[in-house]
């Protein structure tokens, strides 16, 4: 499904990604873990086209995608969320969801005047879908609230809802449970599993909550200082020496040294 080969990316003198290779198989959930600043979000940004790689190749369903614009990568079927959730100040939760669907007729100016009824029809369908998703992520009551006013956890839920609405075949989820309240996390875990099992989606997610990782992931990839240091099932990873060491030294490292890399 997704194949990353010998990927390099540096910022100034800092090597954010160094010779990273891995595969994501269809209809699996792959976890991406590593201490802060290990290059997880950079990897997401390179895959989704927001950063341009220095070296290496990225294939999605057999096609090279690294030269494409972020929006075309998205349209090919790679949806993503952001570590710091994008939540427009002046758009309601519902508008956020309605923004997501692909191929909206009403995104062309001429159609606004030529096919208003088709637009209305499509909008009606999208609305129905949006209501369902809102219930799933428990934002139904907040649908008319400006997304900028949501709490951090709610914003995470919103981005999950938005990506469900967008409906890609590969979902890149950046810390989907951060800040979300514990009881809801359970529901989220179930929902994410359902995506794989019932809707045949492929998921790559960055997560700090090891419980969540071990519960849902088929495979885990560990990054440290931009390098892949381990890959395997959650159980294998938990016993991996290199990983333990990385986490121990990682926690000693100053927190928040580079929240973004």
């Amino acid at each position, binding site marked *: 499904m997704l194949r990353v080969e010998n990927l390099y990316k540096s*910022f*100034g003198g800092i090597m954010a990604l160094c010779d990273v290779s891995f595969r994501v198989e269809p209809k699996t959930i792959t976890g991406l873990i590593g201490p802060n600043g290990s290059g997880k979000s950079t990897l997401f940004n390179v895959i989704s086209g927001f950063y341009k790689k220095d070296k290496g190749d990225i294939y999605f369903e057999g096609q090279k995608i690294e030269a494409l614009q972020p929006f075309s990568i998205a349209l090919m079927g790679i949806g993503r969320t952001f570590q710091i959730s994008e939540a427009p100040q002046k758009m309601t939760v519902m508008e956020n969801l309605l923004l997501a669907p692909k191929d909206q007729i009403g995104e062309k100016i001429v159609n606004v005047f030529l096919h208003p009824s088709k637009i209305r029809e499509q909008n009606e369908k999208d609305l129905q879908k949006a209501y369902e998703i809102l219930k799933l992520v428990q934002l139904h009551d907040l649908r008319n609230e400006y997304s900028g006013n949501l709490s951090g956890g709610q914003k995470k839920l919103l981005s999950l809802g938005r990506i469900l609405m967008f409906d890609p075949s590969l979902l890149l989820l950046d810390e989907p449970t951060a800040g979300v309240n514990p009881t809801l996390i359970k529901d989220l875990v179930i929902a994410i599993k359902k995506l794989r099992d019932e809707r045949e989606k492929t998921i790559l997610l960055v997560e700090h909550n090891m419980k969540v990782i071990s519960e849902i992931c088929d495979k885990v990839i560990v990054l440290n200082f931009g390098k892949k240091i381990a890959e395997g099932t959650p159980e294998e990873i938990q016993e991996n020496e290199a990983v333990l060491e990385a986490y121990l030294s990682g926690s000693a490292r100053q927190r*928040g040294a*580079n929240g*973004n890399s």
Partner: protein
Amino acid sequence: MSFTQIIINSIVRASELALLSLGLTIVYDILGFANFAHTEFAVVGVYLALFLNVSLGLGIVPAAIIASVLTGIIAIFIDRGVFKKMRSSGGIIVMVTSLGVAIALRNTVRAIWGASARNYSVALEKPIITPYFRITPLQIWIIVIGLAAMFLFHLLLHYTKLGKAMRAVSDDPELAQASGIATESIITYVWFIAIGFASVGGILIGMETYILPYMGFAIIVPVFCATIMGGIGNPYGAMLGALVLGFAENFGLYINFGQVLGIEKIFHISKGLFIPTGYKPAISFVILILVLLVRPRGILGKKKAG
């Protein structure tokens, strides 16, 4: 003669522009917005110097220094009153606000001092004549002050605590704040330095030419072009941009494009193919757009981390 003279003219112009674009670029770097009121602040300095010089009879040098310091302080006050309240707003909102500040400042100056052209009480200088070019002592001063400002700024940025803090804030404001750098006090210094430099630049232009309430608007566009061309937020880029613009403005009208492109003989253009003089104000705009087409972040543009 005229070729070397044009080089001198270009350098003088570049030095004036550099003094102004330097401040514009560091305000952008630290505060993250394009300040459309930048040259209007300079005009405030120019008129304060005029008041000190002509109305109070101070020498031009002390007048310039006092006026620049005062203008720097005024800038700090306006920052406290206006821009400080929008630190967390996006660059575009602050930029539009600065436009309002610019309009208000320009017209306040005009309401107080009137619209006519004024001059400092300085005598006409005798140019120094060499076989290759002529230059006035004031123009030498402009070049020297321009270079000195750049050098001082370089020292400031790399060898002082303030400079290091400024660079830290520029690279990552949140991290800088977290590691205990007092961002607000840095911002105060930045305003003072930026507007102080701008005021000096404005006063030098005023000494060399004339003083008008309108001059801030007349130079804002070239100053912006220089800053953006070099890569907004980068002080060295601002200097480079000023140099490019200084040369472009002066050589733009001088170059025979027919000859340069080798089409003079083909089309029998006996008079040569020059840019019509009426298009001179457009030269900087066209160069700006061309530069941005090739390098969307300017010549020395940098990408901010994060």
